[in-house]
């Protein structure tokens, strides 16, 4: 048996146009004939009579595709990373400038009690 024999038989199984003389030579070869029978057995083995599942009786509407949760989570994570990078890469002066431009915030309050910390001026 040669590869040419099995190749011709394989193509013949597929409905391809083959050289009739090569086909005749292949069919004269007992081992090539055995290969042809095995090719037929393989076809029989993958042929299924199983009915179609109920889920495929109708085409589902395009709008009710399965939600891609992982895609949504991935998008949210990407947004967070982008936000963090933006804040980290901002020039520090930008952040400081917002504090320096306005009036300083009081850090303590000092109260003066009349008669204790100061006396009214006598006239």
């Amino acid at each position, binding site marked *: 048996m040669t*590869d040419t024999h*099995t*190749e011709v038989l*394989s*193509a013949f199984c*597929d*409905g*391809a146009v083959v050289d009739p003389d090569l086909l005749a030579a292949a069919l004269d070869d007992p081992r090539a004939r055995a*290969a042809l029978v*095995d*090719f037929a*057995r*393989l*076809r*029989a*083995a*993958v*042929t*299924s*009579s*199983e009915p*179609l*599942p109920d*889920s*495929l009786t109708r*085409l*589902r509407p*395009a709008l009710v*595709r*399965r939600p891609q949760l992982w895609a949504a989570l991935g998008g949210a994570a990407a947004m967070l990373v982008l936000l963090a990078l933006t804040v980290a890469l901002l020039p520090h002066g930008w952040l400081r400038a917002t504090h320096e431009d306005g009036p300083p915030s009081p850090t303590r309050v000092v109260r003066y009690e009349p008669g204790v910390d100061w006396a009214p001026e006598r006239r």
Partner: protein
Amino acid sequence: MHRELVEALFAHYRTPVYRFLYRLIGDRAAAEDLTQDVFVRALDAVYEASERERAWVFQIARNLARDHGRRMVHRRSVALPPQEPSAFVDRAAALAVHEAIARLPDLEREMFLLREVAGLTYDEIALACEVTPDAVRNRLHRARLSLREALAPPIVHLNRARS
């Protein structure tokens, strides 16, 4: 693409697409989902009906199966259940064939199933797999020889299951 046209494609090709996908990925529920996805994706596609529509539908199916395979790469060791076997083989033989097909290189497995399960021609398989028809012919021959070798002990008993 018009929904009416896709509905017609769905009615015509859902069975071979489902059986191709089920054989290819070995997961019934995923094959059902992916079959729907093939035609839902066709709704978004720009395509004019032609004699190549079958190759086009199966090209979408093949691409979706590859995407699915990449997502499930860590689960490939799960045993592949056989479909309801045909009248010519018993369940054990069908499982042996199923496992042998699963061990073929990706492209050969896809081509073999496109030919034997979906019934595509060389030209259609070439379009779906983006190769030449000669490459399809050679790969199919190689796939058959590989399967024959892998199934050497059980394949001779495949037809005895009928009795």
